[in-house]
């Protein structure tokens, strides 16, 4: 444990999940530095050193392209997420840069009212704090499961 969780880091974690759960996807790229790294990976692939991701974005513009595609190109049955996050650990601190681990659980609720646990896993983050504002330099979503229920359109 490399110290307490700074308020700016805690605020970033919280605002991030509220933005997604409130369907404010247009705000999502703003939680990242530019360039950045956002990946959705699976635990099996990570543990075996296999590099393929389900989502791989290395710039804010690529994150924006994901949002534009969700809004205007891809079609799927409408649904919403609810994120539960917990157990933030600061693994390492280098000046204003923090390497953290935390847990997440996401439920997915379809328009017909069906609700189920959709994903659970860990966030592996590199967070930088500048002028009191924290942003993700890296956010790697490591799903515990290699099997996805149908599709992932909305970011985790």
């Amino acid at each position, binding site marked *: 444990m490399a110290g307490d969780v700074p308020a700016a880091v805690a605020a970033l974690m919280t605002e991030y999940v509220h933005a997604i759960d409130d369907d404010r996807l247009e705000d999502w790229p703003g939680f990242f530095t530019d360039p950045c790294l956002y990946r*959705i990976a*699976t635990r*099996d*692939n990570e543990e*075996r050193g*296999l*590099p*393929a*991701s*389900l*989502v*791989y*974005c*290395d*710039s804010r*513009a*690529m994150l*924006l*392209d994901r949002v*534009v*595609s969700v*809004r*205007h*190109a*891809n*079609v*799927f*049955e409408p649904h919403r997420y609810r994120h539960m996050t917990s157990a933030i650990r600061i693994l390492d601190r280098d000046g204003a840069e923090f390497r953290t681990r935390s847990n997440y659980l996401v439920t997915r609720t379809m328009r017909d009212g069906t609700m189920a646990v959709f994903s659970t896993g860990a966030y592996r983050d590199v967070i930088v704090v500048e002028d009191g504002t924290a942003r993700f330099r890296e956010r790697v979503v490591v799903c515990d499961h*290699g*099997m*996805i*229920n*149908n*599709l*992932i*359109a909305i970011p985790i």
Partner: protein
Amino acid sequence: MPETDTLIDWPEEGVARAPYAVFSDPAIYAAEMRRIFRGPVWHYLGLEAELPEPGCYRLIDVGDTPVIVLRTPDGGINALVNRCAHKGTMLLFEPFGRIERLMCIYHNWSYDLDGCLRSVPFARGINGKGGMPASFDMAENGLDRLRVESLGGVVFGTFSEETPPLEAYIGERLMPNYRRMTQRPFKVLGYYSQYLDSNWKLYFENATDPYHATILHAWATRLKLNRFTMEGAIEMSERGWHHLSWSKMATDRDGEVYETEAFRSGGGDFDEFGLHDPSVIEQWDEFGDGITTAIQTAFPNFVLQQIHNTIATRYLVPRGPAGSELVWTVLGYADDDDRQTGIRLKQGNLIGPSGYISLEDGMVGSLVQKGIEGDKDKASVMEMAGRSVESIVNSRASECGVRGFWTAYRELMGV
């Protein structure tokens, strides 16, 4: 030979129809497991690259049957049903690994890597009492084996003695693309799968149906990565069982039909569509033929895929009449340089459960599954380019690939 009992009355339009009942009837599902999945077809079992050393194994489900695929000490490949001959216990449950023998955890019956039973604990009893009878024959209690063939680094297996050799099964017409994509050794970049709330055939209909691709997948159509107006074709295997669909994105002519006809994929509610970071579609012509999409299938459930520089295998595991699992193996080639690997990983955004081009494919199957539930006596209609399974050149406006799937299906099911 196909069984002859009448499971279903097929519509007189033949393979231009698929009766809705085949997507949900438990009796039909049970017959498929026997007549198709245990029948004269080759099943994808994995890659040679997954079995680098003797004793290396992977697990795979062939229909309802769990199978161990392993490298033998002499460098061959065996496929054994993952089930102890004693009580039927699964022998292995880690998906990949390395073993020296196969030992059941339940009573420690042990088998060699050819599936021969080698030891049974307490076979001679205790104090001369109990144990196995003299009539028990170790040689008759080995593991069930599949026939195996490996071609271009891809391993296939079959339960049937009637299945023709693998190359003949794929057929001369489709072997050129198979060779094109398997001429270099593969490197595995990763795995993932999708659980779909739909019958396995609904996804496979989608995979053999290029008609939907440029209409449903608006992302690629709006970016002009794939349009029907590009040079392309659907090539059918000799018996019509398998298909190959390909296109060349640099050859688009008259593509504005998508806009003038007001297809959703041509612009719809949002005319300004474009990429803010086009690096996601950075690509190179790795086969030197300008083909940017090539989807090849092998009945009943295998897909070999090139979408730009994403190379992948996909196979389907039926999970009961109304469910299926679609398993992806994301690939590169062993001699890729770092830049090429980087391009493949970034283009990974195009495929899989989050793929810009593929995320709708599993979803539409579940919409069909829900749509057809109340009318088992009706049928879907597939008449694009007629009712035959003829190949089509300089056009992909045909549902011949789907009709080819149903041709094989009807033949093996006897319906």
